[in-house]
């Protein structure tokens, strides 16, 4: 076969192009709201500020604080399950 041959084999995972759409926004904001710290330094400082703002603007909604064991690895299945079961809205914060 020469390079001019018109067919190649797909080197990819053969998934349709993934377009990540944002989840529908909740308006008004309804909890429980999960604030996930990915365990980067000072992520907690940022989330503390955010939690304060949320408590002012949505005082009736419950807020949960969650934390990944390490920022270097994906969230473990147990944490993903907890987020799915306990949170209606999730905010994940990155600080560095």
């Amino acid at each position: 076969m020469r390079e001019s041959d018109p067919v190649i084999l797909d080197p990819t995972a053969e998934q349709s192009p993934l377009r990540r759409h944002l989840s529908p926004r909740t308006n008004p904001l309804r909890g429980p709201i999960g604030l996930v710290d990915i365990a980067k330094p000072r992520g907690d400082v940022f989330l503390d500020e955010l939690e304060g703002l949320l408590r002012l603007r949505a005082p009736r909604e419950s807020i949960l604080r969650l934390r990944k064991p390490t920022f270097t690895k994906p969230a473990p299945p147990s944490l993903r399950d907890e987020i799915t079961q306990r949170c209606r809205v999730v905010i994940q914060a990155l600080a560095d």
Partner: protein
Amino acid sequence: MSAIPLQGDAAPAFVLRTLGGGKAGVSARGGGGATLLFFFKHDCPTCDFVAPLVGELCRRLAEAGLQGVAVSQSDSAASASFAAKHALEVPVALDEDLSASEAYAFDAVPCLVLVSGEGRVLRAFQGFGRDDFLALAGDAAKSCGRAVPPLERAAEPWPENRPGCASRVHDPEVAERLAVRRAAGRLSARRVPIPPADDPFEFFAALGIDDGLPVVPPTEARVLRMLQGTTRSPSEVVALVPPNLVPATVEKIAINAVMAGCRPEYLRVVIAALEAACTDEFNLHGVLATTYFPTPVIVVNGPVRREIGLQCAGNVFGQGFRANATIGRAVQLVVRNLGGGRPGEVDMATLGQPGKFTCCIGENEEQSPWPPLHVERGFRREQSTVTLFAGEAPRAILDQASRSARSLATSVGLCLESVAHPKLHGYGEVLLVVCPEHCRTLEADGWSKADLRRRIQEVTSRPLAACLPDDDCAEGLPPQALPRELLGPDGQLKPETLGIPVPKFRRDEDILIVVAGAAAGKFSAVLGGWVGGKMGSVAVTREIGT
């Protein structure tokens, strides 16, 4: 290898178009009289010699029910010319796609096959042998209930043997096409047509399946050739490739290995490297996603280095060595194309480094006075392995003056202290690449790897106070990251701890040592790591399979 049918085998059935516009072949159901197949190509002198003999035999036994079919591997014009030259009366069937020739699996033409009325092979041979032909004529006559007709003339005795010419199925381009046809269904990857007006290289770039350099188009023929480099099934899943945790089959790895420019014998090294990279300990997801510098650095040990021509000596991290260049590149392409790890998406490297194109070296075991890396890590010397290390780019360790092991090891330690940041002690793994000339200096004083590691730890030890952030330099070991026993009730370091010596590396064995490079030059190298230990990436060694 010839696998020409044997006496008693079922004759493969086929039907071909003939020069006269009809059809001829061998029926799967059998029936009728015996059939004599004469496979030929027009430019074969032995075919020229045999054609009249076949014609004569068929003519004499035609009335008794023998059917002759001349099966041509040549095009119709050349076949017609051949038939006319020899006044062939038997139908001339055109084996245009060589499917009949392939089914009868002979290596040379002419090939004569006598098939019984029941569809069984009575006799078959290739080339010309006097005894073979006479025996075939005898079988043909017997199958028709006749005596053997006289064929050989005393005035023109036949040669005992006369070799034929190679069957066209062995022409390189034809063989490849036939291999693809045979393998139909063996490969399951989606076929992607390249628009005829497109340059393939521009097309790949537009699809985003390259690494910024041109890739080799992964045609079916090339992928099938690549798969010959392993005994594993194309459908076998080798690993789940981060970040998308996509199953990497041997076939998909082979496709990317073709694109990277690998030879088939490299494939099993690529497979082993991916097995190692896709472990939880190596943590490829984190290695890929970090803003820091690491890339999978592949160190190959054992006999496979010589078998595939992997460079272990001069310019080992550099250009010019196909095995080194393409094995590392194949791993990177798999991560990109299968795992979905692309720069700017999951790969968030701030600067990156050239090793993210490819980084694969062999240990120069022959120049080393020490057990090689894989032996230190629990394998036998005769086993072939890959060790994956999440490393930065190599940086120089210059020492042209030391003539004693202690002096040289001190130099190495001083250079290693600057990995990542001089104040960052308690560091995880690094890869120290010792050049052969430095090895000689260490060997002359009888130093082992353990001695070298110990001296590096001594040289780099600093009082804890010197490693802490201060007004002059805010970087350093943050107190909150230190062991709790060093802290007082107020959360501050106890004063008596400030003088504790802290070596650069957490453990001596975090200094991975390999020997590589040219015989000349007193230049070693260090490759810094990433976050070490369970929180980051740990070097992983895997045996290379078949």
